[in-house]
């Protein structure tokens, strides 16, 4: 890792210490109080949040990956001596910050339902079958250009009890660390043209239309693997400094 931050000098962040500062997104993340998603009712703070300046603990973060991730963790289609059922897909993209810089060497964790929409979890008991060869968990570390790639199965939609006849659109859960505590992000990736978006209060909790669209992966014919897998691309953008920064590397030129 290098210290190549544009070093947005925050006014006096620490005596003599210049720290990177991260933008504070307005209108991107869902409000914690989102009544259409009923579980938010008793779980959102009612007191005002207190502004936390970006000091040393906030601009640093854990360096994770080595020892947590093996090569097999990028492939969810093989488990317990057999192959998972369903449509095999590649999910790939880049982890960037909002300044346009790659976020390399960062842990990306995913989990998802199987092709029938069932999670391998004690509390998921709806009558769709478990797949003996799918456990639904994957991990990779982004490469030097911030790229990540998984091979998995397209997850199914599943019902939940939030409202009458409620169904979650097909999605994959993502968890990312970035390089600083400020950049920690847990989110969900969706698929284009899902007919269930209209009634999903979790997807629709994001107030901004553009930000909602940002959670939808794109079918990527170029990344499909002939005789093997369809492909979807999805870039993940973590908070940057808010300053304009353009990467000098030509990322596309490095693509196969």
């Amino acid at each position, binding site marked *: 890792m290098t210290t190549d931050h544009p070093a947005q000098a925050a006014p*006096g*962040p*620490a*005596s003599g*210490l210049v*720290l990177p500062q991260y933008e*504070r997104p307005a209108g*991107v*993340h*869902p409000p*914690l109080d*989102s009544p259409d*998603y009923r*579980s938010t*009712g*008793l*779980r*959102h*703070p*009612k*007191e005002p949040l207190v*502004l*936390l*300046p*970006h*000091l*040393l*603990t*906030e*601009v*640093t973060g*854990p*360096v994770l990956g080595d020892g947590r991730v093996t090569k097999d963790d990028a492939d969810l289609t093989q488990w317990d001596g057999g192959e998972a059922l369903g449509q095999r897909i590649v999910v790939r993209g880049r982890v960037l910050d909002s300044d*346009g810089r790659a976020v390399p060497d960062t842990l990306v*964790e995913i*989990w998802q339902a199987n092709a029938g929409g069932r999670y391998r*979890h004690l509390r*998921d008991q709806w009558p769709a079958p478990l797949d003996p060869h799918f456990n639904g*968990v*994957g991990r990779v570390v982004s490469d030097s250009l911030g790229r990540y790639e998984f091979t998995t199965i397209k997850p199914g939609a599943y019902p939940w009890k939030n409202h009458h006849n409620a169904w979650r659109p097909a999605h994959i*859960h993502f968890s990312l660390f970035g390089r*600083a*505590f400020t950049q*920690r*992000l*847990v*989110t*969900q990736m969706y698929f284009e043209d899902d007919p269930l978006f209209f009634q999903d209060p*979790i*997807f629709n*909790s994001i107030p*901004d239309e553009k*930000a*909602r669209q*940002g*959670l939808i992966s794109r079918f990527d014919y170029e990344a499909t693997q002939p005789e093997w897998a369809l492909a979807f691309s999805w*870039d993940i*953008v*973590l908070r940057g400094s808010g300053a*304009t920064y353009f990467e000098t590397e030509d990322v596309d030129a490095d693509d196969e």
Partner: protein
Amino acid sequence: MPTTSDGRPGLTASQTVGPYLAIGLTWEHGEEAVDPGTPGAVTVSGTLYDGEGVPIPDGMVEIWQAHPDGRFHHPDDPRGVAEAPPGFRGFARAQTVDGGRWSVLTLVPGAVPGPDGTTQAPHLDLSVFARGLLDRVVTRVYFPEHAGVAGPGGHAEDRVLAAVPAHRRHTLVAQQVDGGYRFDIRLQGENETVFFDI
């Protein structure tokens, strides 16, 4: 990927971890920020409560903190990348599967430089994730033995604590218990924990 009006990549929005976070976010020894048996290791544990005081059994807590000498193993610490003490990672995650209870094992951090030449009292940054939380909520854990310290390293000089209304500051201070500290987290209601806009 959507872009903002000035052409920058648009931030990816947060979504809830949902009820099945244990599938994707379980790590072997994940709750250990330091190896068990390390001299000075303490537990920090508590219960996560909802607005009716009911424990939340499907949440997760993560901590991040300085080393016992107040340094970080990180390139953005302008004092330089510090080697962590043996067996120490500074990061841990714990699920609240045990009736809302969570517990991590760590070392008490050192004081950390703050704004304008002040010193921040030793603290953990703590994130809470759960079904029903569409974004993480962030708080800090302070330690009771630093409450009465005058000057650098004490609570009185800490600018972050100073920004918290005085009558709510107690929600950020752990209690000393056998083997470590107790830090209950109340997402809502009476004695709601102070959460930060990070």
